[in-house]
């Protein structure tokens, strides 16, 4: 093992970082297990805490949340048949059936162990693949980087679930917000309306908090409090027998491979991975008829895929600076808050930090395994926290968090503005994720495009003259047209 990797391990094992990991894991388990609270929401609520922390400590906190949130989602899916996160939907199918038969403990144990396996498998892939991609990406100049960011933005299409037009509008409005502030090349203030606070542009943290958290508060309080059923039965026998786990090994390898592969494809996301792995596991299983009736393989496959996605999604985020889903987009934002530039240069300039991220994810997965199994009864109790208490707490964290960025209420106003916008967007079926992607990637898109055109003295053919850039542009076009063609075909087939 290299000196840098060992130094990174020593850093992650420092007490403050271990405490941060543990806090992230506890918070993540709570967020994941609570139906209606998403991992993205948990991330944006914790982001303000990371301002004053060292980069490694803040990533220990956030990755603990990420890994635990993915696992936590299965607790409510198994006990209540309500997936805590969208990625836990497939777990509910067999997990809840097992719980109904009095095997809730075994189902949770299988889910936690499979999640751990998935997390570790994807981490292995991340460690092996990421440095090679980063090394290759070091050859990128402004045209390649522009084409890469463009590729990231075409993911917008895959998030426009109901209407691609609405998804694109959401993305374009996000880009428009990113034109606010001092123009980097000319030094001209744009759309600042005389506010000094806007000269640095729209702060993305208040925007993120607003888009994700405020609609949930407004929905919860204004539309009504959702009642979550209580889980009354006793949970026992959490640890499956070693013999049972070895029987699930093949299923876990399949789930983890599917999860890591799908996670690494920007825009594909967890829900696709878990249902695909469930389907594949069913096809190759000797007991395929037992799927859906409470079969452990039906829990192991989606759960290993679920956590496999986490490591997979970090591959494009760390190596290319392209977020694969909303969670990695927020992680990307966390990197920027720490003054680190995601992408290939991160591996060169901050190699120790990159290794720390790997180790932090490793430690987080181990903590999730032990803390979930040892504190499962606490989480079952916490599932019952009424929303009349939970929502006001979230509201306070949002207001305090957005204030903490620059110690000014201007950012709180920005947060409220985006919150209202997010609420109405949700109401009228405009997805907010494209706006989030545009807010994160917008400035880089404009900067690299203009830099490229300066290099080529205004000749736009620079983007197709560079082979790597051309490849990215072709993939962008395919990625952009794919969902459109699919939608048209589905429409024609009625």
């Amino acid at each position, binding site marked *: 093992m290299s000196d840098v990797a060992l130094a990174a391990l020593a850093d992650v094992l420092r007490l403050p970082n271990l405490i941060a990991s543990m806090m992230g894991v506890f918070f993540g388990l709570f967020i994941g297990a609570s139906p209606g609270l998403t991992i993205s929401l948990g991330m944006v609520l914790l982001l303000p805490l990371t301002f004053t922390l060292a980069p490694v400590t803040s990533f220990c906190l956030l990755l603990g949340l990420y890994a635990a949130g993915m696992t936590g989602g299965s607790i409510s899916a198994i006990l209540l048949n309500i997936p805590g996160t969208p990625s836990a939907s497939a777990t509910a199918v067999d997990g809840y059936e097992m719980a109904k038969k009095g095997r809730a403990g075994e189902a949770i144990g299988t889910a936690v162990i499979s999640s751990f396996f998935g997390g570790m498998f994807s981490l292995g892939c991340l460690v092996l693949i990421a440095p090679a991609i980063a090394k290759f990406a070091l050859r990128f100049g402004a045209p390649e980087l522009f084409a890469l960011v463009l590729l990231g933005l075409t993911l917008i299409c895959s998030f426009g679930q109901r209407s691609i037009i609405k998804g694109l509008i959401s993305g374009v409005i996000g880009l428009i917000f990113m034109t606010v502030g001092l123009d980097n090349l000319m030094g001209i203030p744009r759309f600042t309306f005389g506010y000094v606070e806007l000269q640095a542009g729209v702060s993305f943290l208040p925007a993120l908090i607003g888009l994700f958290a405020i609609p949930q508060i407004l929905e919860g309080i204004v539309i009504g*409090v959702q009642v979550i059923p209580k889980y009354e039965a006793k949970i026992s026998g959490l640890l499956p027998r070693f013999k049972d786990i070895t029987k699930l090994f093949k299923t876990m390898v399949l789930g983890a491979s599917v999860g890591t592969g799908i996670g690494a494809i920007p825009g594909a996301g967890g829900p696709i991975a878990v249902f695909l792995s469930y389907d594949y596991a069913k096809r190759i299983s000797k007991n395929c008829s037992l799927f859906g009736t409470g079969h452990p393989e039906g829990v192991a496959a989606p759960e290993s895929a679920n956590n496999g996605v986490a490591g997979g999604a970090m591959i494009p985020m760390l190596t290319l600076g392209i977020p694969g889903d909303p969670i990695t987009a927020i992680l990307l934002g966390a990197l920027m808050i720490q003054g680190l530039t995601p992408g290939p240069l991160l591996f060169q300039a901050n190699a120790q930090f990159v290794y720390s991220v790997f180790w932090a994810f490793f430690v987080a997965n181990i903590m999730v395994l032990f803390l979930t199994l040892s504190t499962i009864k606490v989480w079952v109790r916490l599932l019952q926290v009424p929303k009349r208490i939970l929502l006001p707490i979230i509201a306070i964290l949002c207001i305090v968090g957005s204030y903490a960025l620059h110690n000014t209420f201007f950012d709180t106003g920005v947060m409220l503005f985006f919150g209202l916008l997010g609420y109405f967007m949700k109401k*009228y*079926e405009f997805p907010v994720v494209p706006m989030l992607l545009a807010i994160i990637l917008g400035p880089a898109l404009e900067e690299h495009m203009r830099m490229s055109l300066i290099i080529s003295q205004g000749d736009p053919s620079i983007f197709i003259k560079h082979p790597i850039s051309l490849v990215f542009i072709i993939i962008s076009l395919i990625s952009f047209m794919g969902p459109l063609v699919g939608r048209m075909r589905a429409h024609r087939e009625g």
Partner: protein
Amino acid sequence: MRRTNIFISIILFAFTGYYAYLITELPTRNIPHTLGADFMPWVLTVCLLLLSSLLFLESLFYKREKQRVGRISLKEVAGILSLLAIIVAYITAMIYFGYVFITPLFMAAMMLMSGSKKLKEIIFFPIGITLAVYIFFYRFFNVLLPGGKIF
């Protein structure tokens, strides 16, 4: 939903027009072979105009299944406005009295709005949570919390 989409596309047209007007007001600086500060905004204006037109035409000619989503009732508007009023009042009060004194009142008001009826819950939870956030953010993580002008 069709009518709502038509209404939204009209709002988007208006917004695009206003944005285009703002772009024309931007100061210009000519540097050879360099795109001006207004280049990207113009590209985005064209994109938004195109997409708004597509949404408008789609809503006009493409009949989708009837949906009742998207309607906002008066009760909902009143709920949103009152919640916003409470948040704005909280922020304004915090400027003068600071985080520690005002937050329990704000949280109690939010809990009442969320349907909390138990007096003990309304008194003790806000105080406990306020102190927990204070200790966690300010003492533990050194994150500054709003301090009032008076307290």
